[in-house]
């Protein structure tokens, strides 16, 4: 079985499907248990909903950009489904169509005159913050990057 597993990773989708069918027929003869073991290894390639775009690098990149973490394998799976869903847009022909940013694009944006009409409410604004010193919001030191994925366990913080 294991030699077949390594060989089929080089095959195209069609060939993979044919192989799967043949294997299934053989597996019925060989017994259910061995078939299940084989299938488990190939779920990600056979499942049309999963795209293999969300690699570990992408995960790390996104977590750093967004400053939120995935938290679990299910979240990654959900992202993959979301991407597969969004891929449906490829079927639309958008040649010569301009992107639309706002439905009010034909109108002029309102600009008010540059006069100070309100403000001076520093005290009220500071009340909502947790850490304040005099009139400053207190932040931890900046310019320190998050530790790399290798230095921390994946999904350690659920």
């Amino acid at each position, binding site marked *: 079985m294991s030699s077949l597993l390594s060989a089929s990773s080089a095959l195209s989708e069609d060939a993979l499907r044919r192989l799967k069918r043949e294997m299934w027929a053989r597996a019925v003869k060989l017994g259910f248990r061995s078939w299940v073991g084989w299938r488990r290894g190939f779920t990600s390639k056979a499942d049309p909903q999963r795209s293999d775009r*969300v690699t570990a690098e*992408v995960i790390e*990149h*996104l*977590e750093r*950009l*967004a*400053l*939120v*973490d*995935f*938290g679990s394998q299910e*979240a990654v799976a*959900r*992202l993959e*489904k*979301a*991407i597969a*869903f*969004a891929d*449906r*847009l*490829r*079927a*639309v022909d*958008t040649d010569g*169509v*301009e*992107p*639309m*940013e*706002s*439905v*009010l694009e034909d*109108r002029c*944006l*309102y*600009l*008010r005159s540059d006069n100070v009409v309100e403000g001076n*409410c520093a005290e*009220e*604004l500071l*009340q*909502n*913050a*947790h*850490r304040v010193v005099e009139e400053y*919001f207190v*932040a*931890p*030191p*900046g*310019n*320190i*990057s*998050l530790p790399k994925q290798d230095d921390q366990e994946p999904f350690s*913080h659920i």
Partner: protein
Amino acid sequence: MLKGYVPPYNATVVQKLLDKGAVLMGKTNLDEFAMGSGSTDGVFGPVKNPWSYSKQYREKRKQEAHGENEDSNWLITGGSSGGSAAAVAAFTCFAALGSDTGGSTRNPAAHCGVVGFKPSYGLVSRHGLIPLVNSMDVPGILTRCVDDAAIVLGMLAGHDPKDSTTIQDPVKPFTLPTFADVNKLCIGIPKEYLAPELSSEVRSFWSKAANLFESEGAKVIEVSLPHTSYSIVCYHVLCTSEVASNMARFDGLEYGHRCDINVSTEAMYAATRREGFNDVVRGRILSGNFFLLKENYENYFIKAQKVRRLIANDFVNVFNSGVDVLLTPTTLSEAVPYLEFIKEDNRTRSAQDDIFTQAVNMAGLPAVSVPVALSNQGLPIGLQFIGRAFCDQQLLKIAKWFEKQVQFPVIQLQELMDDCSSDFEIEKLSSVFLKQ
């Protein structure tokens, strides 16, 4: 994320209502950051639909289930402004504000048997509304009848210097005269909205409504919005992308929840956001960031913006061909039990439930969900009218006429009220006119 946050200012829509003498009774529950279509994912817990406790629903249930714990199978309100819809449906208040980015006002309105109105984009100020999708958000209005919605809209509509996306055209007052010219109307029925998942009851009410207009002399024609099947995908991409950007402001530094990590700003932000956001919000932020990556920007975000133009153009073409208003279902079916709703995750549910409502947000058009009748289970079903941009008054006029024809029954919550008001008194309450 906003734990402990007390806003230091009022949103313009709230301030306008307060200036006119409204009494703010409270804030209602919703899906966290308005992301969801069931009002089940809020920090304070899910919202229960008052119709779960209505006499109309209970009587139908008695005929079926026996020996079941009465409170275990309560129904969702729809979302994301479910708390507002529930409050209005249960006679807690005269009106409630919601937000509508993909149908979040109209969806719960249909499930709770109230009127849910989405104004044209640019008519009502968004200053103070936590932004989800800047180009699609509007504050929504929930009331028990169309006249009340018109009253509230009259107070809220108009230019706001603090929101530069509000239009500067002068706004006429929104009194609704009785609509007598039904026979001059042209109603469009978009054929792509006949989704296979649409329940047969909703479909039959939809076609009865179309027949009603026809019998009064209106012209009822089938129209086509060819890109309808892509609108939910387009919405998904644009929404997550904008969310990724808009949620970046929540870092715990100036307001809201903040965790105790002090190693670095990045670590503090990451931990705060992990604790403060639930899975749904985090999922959308990450999806949005994915679509905005350099390698994906053109293929997803820009592509979705182009598809958005196609969808908006679909509507423009239909309205240019002489159609005054579109009539569609609001939801696929009546409200479902909570236990059933949570079997699928939030993203799947939103993709299913927003199908009739989100294209309107992409085109910035006004729309209203009007309760039509009760289903076989005794639950409300609503239908949606979509109007031309900035023709909100005309849309409401038509909705008011329709509302009068269908005579949607009042919810009977007698079992919950000990020394109860009679049905008659409840009916008097259903429309309260403010003296201006």
